[in-house]
């Protein structure tokens, strides 16, 4: 474990001797301490900006179990064969070396908000003045009849980056000729609103090249979905006859699966499938619930600084937060993290706090050089993060514009990952 001992309270010698149960000092410590849990688009960005901008005035600890973080954003492009898995992997070395962030590769297993401490699976305890939670999503047990996490190898969700992404692509590549790929799409709200539909596009792209008689069957509990007109246009242009989406009006929400038999039953009709991508209903990452800052599935936050409604010293970023109008996306989490970092630094060091401004753009790839995007800007109101202005790609755009949009998405990926990790 790479844990900087400054974060154990008590003398260095005592802490070293009793790593399992360090004492915690409530007051009189030196620098203010911020613990960030989760090293994705929200957490890595928040830790980086706090450490960079405070120039050593704030002690920042980042808790993230993975040594190499595989982004969930752009994972569909790996499934489509446009990216290698290594293109999506990022490490935390620069955050530690360049900004002095204490990067701890461990699981946070509990938060004591009265004592202001975080417990780690390895047995250590971290004290904080401010706690930033950016744990992403977990799945709602029982939301898809017949599926549970125990079935995620037979029927992958592939909605967290890394091994699940690789598994789904391997299964698609192993499909028999003329086989069936099924997807159970999630109900709102969920991470990356266009994500399931970009994934369908990328699966179709793979199958068109290697298995053109294969079919894609989608059960969707929603009456409509993000960028629907753009995707439907693209599917008609590139993948005519391959994709069958059963929406809410035809019973797309009445679905069950049998991972052992590899069947999916939609509105009473059972189909044998070769690959089944089950994307269940989502909720805030578990540590948010354990910290007691959730209400229902998500953690309500104040728009001005992303602090939770129940505890001004605990902040929640990104997918796990319930903030208002922003979609759950890596871009949103990154945007929220910068507002939060500015506010937290101001609270701890009296640095200037500027007004909250948020933005988001989601690019999706439909086929080679056929990119589309949707985006909006947001502001903080007393009630929520509220949408100010937005745009969406149009149907019928020129091939040049779609290619430029795709190239722009690659630029964004390079930009946001640099903004998180470099």
């Amino acid at each position: 474990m790479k844990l900087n001992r400054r974060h154990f309270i008590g003398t260095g010698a005592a802490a070293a001797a009793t790593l399992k149960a360090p004492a915690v000092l409530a007051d009189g410590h030196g620098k203010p301490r911020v613990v960030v849990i989760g090293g994705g688009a929200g957490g890595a960005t928040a830790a980086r900006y706090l450490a960079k901008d405070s120039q050593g005035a704030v002690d920042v600890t980042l808790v993230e179990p993975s040594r190499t973080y595989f982004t969930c954003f752009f994972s569909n492009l790996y499934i489509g064969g446009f990216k290698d898995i290594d293109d999506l992997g990022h490490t935390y070395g620069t955050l530690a070396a360049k900004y002095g962030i204490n990067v701890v590769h461990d699981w946070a297993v509990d938060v004591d908000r009265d004592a202001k401490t975080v417990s780690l699976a390895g047995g250590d305890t971290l004290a904080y003045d401010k706690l930033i939670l950016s744990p992403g999503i977990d799945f709602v047990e029982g939301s898809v009849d017949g599926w549970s996490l125990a079935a995620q190898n037979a029927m992958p969700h592939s909605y967290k980056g890394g091994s699940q992404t690789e598994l789904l692509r391997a299964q698609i590549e192993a499909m028999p000729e003329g086989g069936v790929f099924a997807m159970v799409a999630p109900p709102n709200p969920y991470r990356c609103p266009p994500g399931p539909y970009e994934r369908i596009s990328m699966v179709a792209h793979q199958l068109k090249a290697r298995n053109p008689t294969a079919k894609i069957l989608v059960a969707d509990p929603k009456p409509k979905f993000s960028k629907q007109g753009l995707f439907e246009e693209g599917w008609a242009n590139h993948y005519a006859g391959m994709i069958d989406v059963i929406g809410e009006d035809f019973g797309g929400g009445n679905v069950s699966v049998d991972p052992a038999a590899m069947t999916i039953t939609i509105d009473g009709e059972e189909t044998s499938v070769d690959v089944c991508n089950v994307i269940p209903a989502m909720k805030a990452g578990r540590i948010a619930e354990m910290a007691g800052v959730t209400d229902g599935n998500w953690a309500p936050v104040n728009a001005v600084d992303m602090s939770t409604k129940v505890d001004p010293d605990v902040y929640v970023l990104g997918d796990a937060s319930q903030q208002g109008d922003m979609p759950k996306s890596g871009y949103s989490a990154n945007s929220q993290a910068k507002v939060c970092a500015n506010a937290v630094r101001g609270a701890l060091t009296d640095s200037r706090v500027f007004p909250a401004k948020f933005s988001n753009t989601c690019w999706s790839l439909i086929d080679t050089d056929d990119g589309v995007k949707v985006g909006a800007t947001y502001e903080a109101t007393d009630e929520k993060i509220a949408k100010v202005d937005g745009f969406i790609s149009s149907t019928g755009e020129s091939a040049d514009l779609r290619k430029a949009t795709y190239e722009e998405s690659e630029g964004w990926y390079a930009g946001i990952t640099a903004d998180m990790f470099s």
Partner: protein
Amino acid sequence: MKRWRLAAAVVAALHVGAASAETQLLGDPEIGEQLYIKCKSCHQVGAGAKDGIGPHLNGIFGRRAAAHEGFFYSKSMARAGADGLVWTAETLDAYLENPRALVSKTRMSFRGLKDPAERANIMAYLRAFSDNPADLPEAEPTARGTDHDLDPAILAIQGDPAYGEYLSSECLTCHQRDGSAEGIPSITRWPEEDFVIAMHAYKNKLRPHPVMQMMAGRLNNEEIAALAAYFKTLE
């Protein structure tokens, strides 16, 4: 040639209420022909015109930027074309006034024409060498007067670099801090004036990119100045 004066009158009528002279987008083609001396060492026009240092300008009206086959355009111009920039009286007016404000790294080394009447006259001359005069793009009901002619008071605002640094975090989700450009242009180390003019061109929807129109649209004059001040010094 009278039809061009008529077109100018139509355009002027569309802008009733906008008092400034530059709303009259097409001027006198005969005066324009004289002014075109400034352009013709690089741009041929008329029968038998060929590409030179710059592309020939026959048929420029209504053409997408960087769409003339056979001419090697700057990446910036190609990108503007891909983003949807089409040459109309409005966009040509903006380009002629300050080429870099509209297309930041254009290879056209021309300081620009500050006098709106001169621009209108040159455009009236050029318009005669484009096809389909009936499709005058500047006569569309959506045609607007130019508003890129920034108030000197806006250009004179001293930006607050500390505020700019905070605001810049929003830019840096896409634009790389180290100035590298991979699918998204570099925005570091620009002269402040160019930065401010470019951002106002997005804010006023003269530049076509929707993300940038949205981002710039919500920034006030002080915030744009703050960003310009910060990015100018970013290493």
